């Protein structure tokens, strides 16, 4: 019965990857307490996957409405840059002793960064829902210009932050676990609850499957679409803060580069169709974990960097094929005996 569950296949893919890690990488599952928190590969994966999961959550809703948002990376750069510049701080040498000075109170800086992200979302939302531009071009505009704006803010420099409390967001620990995990869990729970306890999920699916019928049934299609783009950018904004906090600096040139592609990949690996409609938030989380585990595996296993991409693509192909019902039937036909034997 649960083999039929839509999350079964993504979970199985993740499990197989972890199994490979278990065999190939000694001490992969080893966790120890270091400085009062858990330390180990699994923690790294969760911590690293956090921004990707956030981006994927936002992307899931956009994709559910038949849209796509390729400006996620740019939004990450913008929000991270704004936060880093406002909190900023410089190192000054006083009598040969370095001292750190912060600029703006952190709360304000975070609000400003999220504000910037929401503005990005609103911009995308207006272009898609208001003007009816095709999502991919509408968000392409921000993808190109957004990173430019972030670089304009920093003059192309990497802005380093010297303010301890800010680091908590991306590399702090709470009850032994990375704080970013809590943020992701909170966003996931709130989103899932919104989908469950309100009619939002139903509406988003309806708009994604048949916008004309949805409008005739009385849905505010434009408002819904606007909302999902804002939500997606908000998620990207938080992801940007996390990334910035984690590397203690805002790199407008590279922060979140190509994050949108990984996010889309995560969404699809999780079983959501890019044609819109039915979606699975949990699936996207699993998809993101698959991608991060894969990346981590490649690093740990000691493959030469030249083959990274080939390995990644082969895994993606395999995961996709494993999810295809047609592939299963074909497999059955090709190897009838063996399947029976296994069953």
């Amino acid at each position, binding site marked *: 019965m649960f083999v039929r569950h839509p999350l079964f296949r993504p979970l199985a893919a993740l499990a197989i990857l972890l199994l490979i890690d278990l065999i190939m990488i000694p001490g992969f599952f080893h966790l120890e307490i270091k400085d009062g928190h858990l330390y180990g590969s699994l923690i790294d994966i969760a911590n690293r996957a956090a921004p990707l999961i956030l981006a994927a959550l936002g992307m899931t809703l956009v994709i559910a409405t038949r849209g796509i948002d390729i400006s996620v990376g740019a939004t990450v750069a913008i929000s991270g840059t704004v936060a880093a510049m406002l909190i900023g701080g410089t190192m000054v040498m006083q009598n040969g002793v370095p001292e750190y000075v912060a600029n703006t109170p952190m709360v304000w800086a975070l609000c400003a960064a999220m504000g910037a992200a929401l503005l990005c979302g609103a911009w995308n939302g207006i272009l898609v829902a208001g*003007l009816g531009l*095709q999502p991919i*071009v509408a968000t392409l505009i921000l993808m190109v210009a957004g990173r*430019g704006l972030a670089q304009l803010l920093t003059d192309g420099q990497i802005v380093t932050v010297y303010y301890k409390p800010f680091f908590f967001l991306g590399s702090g620990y709470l009850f032994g676990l990375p704080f970013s995990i809590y943020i992701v869990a909170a966003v996931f729970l709130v989103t899932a609850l919104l989908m469950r306890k309100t009619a939002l999920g139903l509406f988003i699916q309806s708009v994604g499957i048949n916008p004309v019928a949805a409008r005739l049934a009385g849905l505010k299609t434009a408002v819904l679409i606007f909302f999902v783009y804002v939500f997606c950018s908000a998620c990207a904004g938080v992801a940007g803060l996390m990334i910035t906090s984690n590397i203690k600096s805002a790199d407008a040139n590279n922060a979140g580069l190509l994050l949108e592609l990984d996010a889309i990949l995560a969404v699809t*690996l999780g079983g959501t169709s890019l044609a819109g409609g039915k979606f699975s938030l949990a699936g996207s989380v699993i998809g993101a974990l698959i991608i991060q585990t894969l990346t981590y595996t490649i690093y740990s296993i000691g493959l030469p960097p030249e083959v990274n991409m080939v390995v990644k693509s082969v895994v993606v192909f395999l995961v996709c094929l494993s999810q295809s019902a047609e592939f299963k039937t074909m497999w059955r036909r090709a190897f009838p005996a063996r399947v029976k034997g296994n069953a």
Partner: protein
Amino acid sequence: MTNTRSLTSSPYFTSLVTVALLLVLLGAGGWAYPGFLSEQVLFNLLIDNAFLLVIAVGMSFVIISGGIDLSVGSVLALTTMISAWLLQTWHWPPLVVIAISLAIGAGFGAAMGALIHYFKLQPFIVTLAGMFLARGLCYLISINSITIDDPTFVAVSQAQLPVLGGFISPGALIALITLAVAIYVAHCTPFGRAIYAVGGNEQSALMMGLRVGRTKVLIYAFSGFCAALAGVLFSFYMLSGYGLHAQGTELDAIAAVVIGGTLLSGGYGYVAGALSGVLVLGAIQTLIAFDGTLSSWWTKIVIGGLLFIFCVVQRLMAIGAAKK
């Protein structure tokens, strides 16, 4: 029904609007920067974007059929790499190398098309994985760039075909021929029409008895072929094979096709729109190069801004036309 009605009227109109806006863009450039409107600058638009045009032509087919192909940039790079490798390391005759490259591109596309159709996988994901794969294969051949010094390639690379007081490259000519053939195929052959049918409604196309599977595989094969042909043109253009060539070209191609008036949801649009779309992108870049004062980030912001103005004006005019 009104929604579909306004949709149907828009692509044709959008295409016209694109051409008009392109002329405005060029006019503005000529007014602001002396020398901008010389023949050679305009021909350079074609020469420099020949490979993009070829890719966009293949991409048009894919998008009209309701799919997408993200692998084109990588397939281009892979083609340059394979050509360079075969020429430099194995010293195969250039024509054979070109034929093999094109066949590999088409085969790569066909394989993706088959995965998409027979296993009902999503085009976005299959071609995204294809993009990683093709790039990865480049690095397996070599992570260095390989310079091509085969005399035929060098000769083609430096050939200049005189036209109207300026010149174009053989690559540009090949691109234009590809475009012409593609327009013919799209509008005057059953295969071309089947592409539109599949894009309009795949289920219906199947129920009407069209060979949907074959059409889809062929579409992706064609796109792969175009990407490989673009790769060959790129090898002429750059005389090198390199795994990092043409990064992000897939987005440029998609943008060009969409700006040219094709709907990403499939079914509506014109292959010829690829030309206007490519020229618009090229003109924006040329404008920026002529200006010569923009810093890196202002370059990005201005490209984004021009894209924005362009898309919005295009969209508003289309809405206006539909209201009329």
